[in-house]
C-alpha cells in the first residue's frame, strides 16, 4: 500500500508540477481551465493506450522503440514550451495588463490554447503510462492485493495534486509586475529539464554518446529520493548523476529559448496605459 502511494505520488508529482506551472503561465488566457481539463483527460486516455501497447512499442526500432517514443514525447513537449515562452515574450505585457480582464482577450490566445492542451496531455501521457503499468503490475502480483493498491494509488495521486495545487497558489501570490517573468523562467527550466531527459533516452538507445557517465555525483549530498530532491527533479530537472550529454542538452536548449525570447521581446520606452 505504501509502495503504491509512493510511486504514484512520484509520477503524479512530475505531471502536477508541469500542469501547475502551465496553468499559472497562461493566466489571463480565456477558457484555459477547459483546455487544461481536456488535456488531462486526453493524456489519461493516451496513457491507457500506451500502457496496453507497451509490448508493441518496445519491439519497434529493433528493441529501442520505448527509448525513441519517450525521447519523441519529451522533444515535442520542449518544442511546445519553447513556442509558449516565445509567444509570451511578445504578448506578455498586454497579458499583464489584461490578466484581470479576460473579456478583452487577445485573439492569438486561441493558438496558445492548443499549446496548453498539448503540453498538459503529453505530461499526463508520459507519467500516466508508467503509473498505469505499475498499478497493473502491483494489483495483480503483490501480496497487497487489488484494493490496497488502488487505495494507495489514490492517496499518492491526491498528494501529488496537492503539491501541484500549493505551487499554483504560491505562484498566484506573486505581484503581477513580476508574475510573467517568474513563470517564464519556470517554463524555461522545465523545457531544459525535459531536453536533458530526452538526451538520457537517446543515450540509452545508443544513438548518442554519454560524454561522461556520470559527469558528477551529488547523490550523497542530495538524493533524488528525498522530498527536496524529488521536487527539484520535477521543477528544474535535478539529476544527482547526470551524463555529460544531458548537461549539454540542458544548456543548449536553455540558451536557444532564452535568446529567442530576448530577440522577440518588444523593447524601447513604452507608454503606460
Amino acid at each position, binding site marked *: 500500500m505504501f509502495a503504491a502511494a509512493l510511486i504514484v505520488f512520484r509520477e503524479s508529482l512530475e505531471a502536477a508540477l508541469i500542469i501547475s506551472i502551465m496553468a499559472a503561465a497562461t493566466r489571463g488566457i480565456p477558457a484555459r481551465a477547459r483546455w487544461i481539463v481536456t488535456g488531462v483527460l486526453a493524456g489519461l486516455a493516451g496513457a491507457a493506450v500506451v500502457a496496453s501497447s507497451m509490448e508493441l512499442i518496445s519491439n519497434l526500432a529493433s528493441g529501442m522503440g520505448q527509448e525513441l517514443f519517450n525521447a519523441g514525447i519529451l522533444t515535442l513537449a520542449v518544442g511546445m514550451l519553447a513556442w509558449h515562452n516565445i509567444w509570451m515574450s511578445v504578448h506578455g505585457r498586454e497579458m499583464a495588463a489584461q490578466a484581470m480582464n479576460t473579456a478583452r482577450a487577445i485573439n492569438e490566445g486561441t493558438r496558445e490554447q492548443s499549446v496548453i492542451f498539448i503540453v498538459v496531455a503529453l505530461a499526463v501521457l508520459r507519467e500516466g503510462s508508467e503509473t498505469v503499468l*505499475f498499478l497493473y503490475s502491483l494489483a495483480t502480483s503483490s501480496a497487497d492485493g487489488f484494493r490496497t493498491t488502488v487505495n494507495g494509488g489514490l492517496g499518492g495521486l491526491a498528494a501529488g495534486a496537492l503539491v501541484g495545487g500549493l505551487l499554483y497558489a504560491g505562484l498566484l501570490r506573486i505581484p503581477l509586475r513580476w508574475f510573467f517573468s517568474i513563470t517564464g523562467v519556470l517554463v524555461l527550466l522545465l523545457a531544459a529539464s525535459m531536453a536533458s531527459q530526452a538526451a538520457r533516452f537517446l543515450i540509452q538507445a545508443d544513438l548518442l554518446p554519454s560524454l561522461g557517465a556520470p559527469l558528477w555525483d551529488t547523490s550523497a549530498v542530495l538524493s533524488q529520493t528525498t522530498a527536496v530532491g524529488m521536487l527539484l527533479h520535477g521543477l528544474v530537472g535535478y539529476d544527482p548523476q547526470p551524463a555529460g550529454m544531458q548537461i549539454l542538452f540542458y544548456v543548449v536548449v536553455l540558451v536557444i529559448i532564452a535568446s529567442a525570447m530576448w530577440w522577440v521581446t518588444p523593447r524601447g520606452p513604452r507608454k503606460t496605459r
Partner: protein
Amino acid sequence: MKRLLATALLSFVAATAFAAGDEFTLTIKDHAFEPKEITLPAGKKVKLLVVNKDATPAEFESKPLGREKVIPGKASATINLGPLKPGRYAFVEEYHENEAAAQGTIIVQ
C-alpha cells in the same frame, strides 16, 4: 551531398552496431532478480538482456547508470550499457523496489 550524408549516417549506424559488445542476461521471476549480482567488463559497451518471466510488466531502473526501461510481461528487453568505469552500480525492479529480492547490483571490473 545528400547521398554522402546518408552514407556517413549509415556507416555510423553500422559502426555503433558492430561496436556493441558482449551480451549478459538477467532474469526476473516472481519479482526477484536472478542473479542478484552481475559482473560486467569495464571500458567497453555491453548489452544487458533482461528476461521477464512473470506475466506482469516490470521496470528495470538504475539511477547511477541513468537507465530505465519497462519490460512487458513474458517478454525481454535489451539495455545498452557502457563504456563503464569500475565500481558497483545498484539497480531495482521499480514496481517492487522496496522488496529485497527486487534489488540488485552490477559490478564492473
